[in-house]
């Protein structure tokens, strides 16, 4: 269940709505009730307000902590650190980005094998974003020129197919044409 939530943009959208919809319900209820239905001052005492104040803040803190703690195992930084520390057979792919193309050291890769993408920019800001064949964006890496080392991430592909690589940092007048492909084949 958490995979769908934390490994997709639509999971993020669902989380945003999860926080937004209850707020809007309460917000409109309070505004309509106290401006149209019954604008008279509340008879509730100070203690009641305090009780709601603590309840509200407790709920907010609980949701915030739960969501973020649950997301830790899905953070690419954590996944990369764990993969690098393990004995897994990591395959290295070097990427060089220049306006408006990529130079990718190996474009045919194996499903199920951790791939370490190490990417650099040769001129201006670029990114290296990988899209699943079904159109989902899997991850993006920001590439800033003149850094000491490459931007790097370890990712393990699950499905074979042709993946699209795109630049998501605006890099000039042909930015939209900066594309390439990766081919994922079943493991031997």
């Amino acid at each position: 269940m958490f995979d769908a939530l934390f490994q997709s943009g639509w999971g993020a959208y669902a989380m945003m709505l999860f926080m937004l919809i209850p707020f809007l319900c309460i917000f409109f209820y309070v505004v309509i009730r106290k401006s149209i239905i019954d604008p008279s001052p509340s008879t509730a005492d100070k203690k009641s307000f305090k009780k709601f104040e603590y309840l509200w803040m407790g709920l907010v803190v609980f949701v915030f902590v739960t969501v973020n703690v649950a997301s830790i195992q899905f953070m690419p930084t954590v996944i990369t650190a764990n993969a690098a520390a393990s004995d897994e057979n990591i395959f290295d792919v070097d990427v060089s980005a220049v306006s408006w193309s990529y130079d990718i050291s190996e474009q045919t890769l194996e499903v199920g094998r951790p791939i370490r993408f190490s990417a650099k920019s040769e001129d201006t800001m670029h990114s290296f974003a990988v899209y699943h064949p079904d159109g989902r964006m899997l991850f993006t890496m920001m590439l800033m020129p003149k850094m000491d080392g490459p931007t790097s991430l370890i990712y393990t592909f699950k499905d074979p197919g042709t993946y699209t690589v795109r630049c998501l940092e605006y890099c000039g007048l042909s930015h939209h044409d900066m594309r390439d492909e990766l081919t994922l084949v079943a493991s031997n």
Partner: protein
Amino acid sequence: MLAATKILRGTPLFGRMFGIDQNDGLEEINSWPNLMIVTSFVWLAVAGLIGLSMPLIQRFELDSDLYYLALTAHGAALAFPFGFQLMVGVGLHRNGGCSGKAVTGTLPALIYIFMNVGSALLTVAILMGFSVSLVVMYPLPVVGVETGQWSYSSLVLGFTGIGLVLIMMILLYPIQVLKMSFFGKERDDLTLNKRTLDDPGMLGMVVAALVLLVFGMPLLIVASYVLVSLYGIIPFEAITFFLEPVIFQFAFFVFAHNLMEAMAIMVISAVYGTLPLYLADGTRELYSKKLANLAIWILLITSFSSFLHHFITLFPNMPSALAYHGHIMSWGTGIGSALSIFTILATIWKHGLRMNPGVLTVLMGFALYVLDGSSAIVTSNVAWSFQLHGTMWQSGHTMTVLISMSMLWMGVLYHHYPVMTGRKLDDTLGYWWVGLFTVGAAGAALVMLAGGAAGMPRRHADWAQDGWMIYGDWTLFFGFVMAAGLFVYALNLFKSRWIDDTAFSPSAQPGPAE
């Protein structure tokens, strides 16, 4: 008569909406603010039309260069000469009325000139081809010259314009706010509603000014060195440190992020100042001043280092510890916002609400602000950031934060309008404006965020590439709804009537200002 009043008199159409009533003795707190507001609306009209053109350029598959030109012009006009200038105009009027100090002298004039001349120069540079997007994307401006995408002269002109705007936002405006808040003689004839710094409605204004001054200084220094080198006064070799992309980018986002946070703090402060005036029982008190001030302080403390979330995907060039810090601080701003939500709703529940289009605009703007906040903290989570950064989600977030804050200010403006002009607005048109604009802004935000969730890239001239045109079409539809709302707002200003003479219509006969 003040220079700003004279300019307003000579400005057709827009000038009539914000003419100065010279009989009420408030010209000194109204003149420059009114001129700034009028000019911000001119920029809004320009930015709005360009914004609507962007999906149309994509829909009719026009030249991609045109799209990037529109993208840069739209963002630049919307964020600075509209959004920021509107805030400065309404904010300085509020500050003058709360502290009893005049908004006159050289400084307000310089604020106005630097903002508008700077924005105009940037616009000319963009028309010359300087398509670097709202956030400049350094070192793209220089690389663009090297690769023949735009000329060196457009780069120099564009950076000169940006420099003037930055001086206004980082130095001139904060100095003006601090001057009015702590120095100068207080005048009873200008005091409309006395407030001190323990009032949340005043505290946020001063905090926001300090944030701009402190967190903008690194960018002002870096940008000054770059500009001086572009003019050939210092050789590029002498400033290599400032030309490093990482230095410029971090200095830029420390400022840009905190600029948005400062605007948010200031606008929340304005909500705290305005809402109590519409309470049904007439108490004019927030549920808790202490809680309201705590929300502002939490927003301040958590927001200044949360800018690190802009660089989460730079890993490991930006260490993951800093990414986690940015992540946690961003969600911390959510705690400040939760306190604001409680304060506002508890205030309404406790005292009841006297509904009016002005306060409804403020409340709808606040609801949009919460929508935007939800999208912002989600994308600041390290796990989601890798799937959303660089997508339309970010554009949806940027647009919504600007729209929501502008809406809040336009609500505050609705409240202040009679005092600023001596005229009153039509409430029926006011409710139409709120309804249309809220639906348009919320719809556009949700569609753009959905585009981001689907992987639609931002600042990208080919939405047809992977079936994203549908999000563009719906954004255009809601853009038109927003435009209809703004048209009604403008119509209401144009049709405003003198308070003492309900039969008066500025379109039918000359007013006292003429």
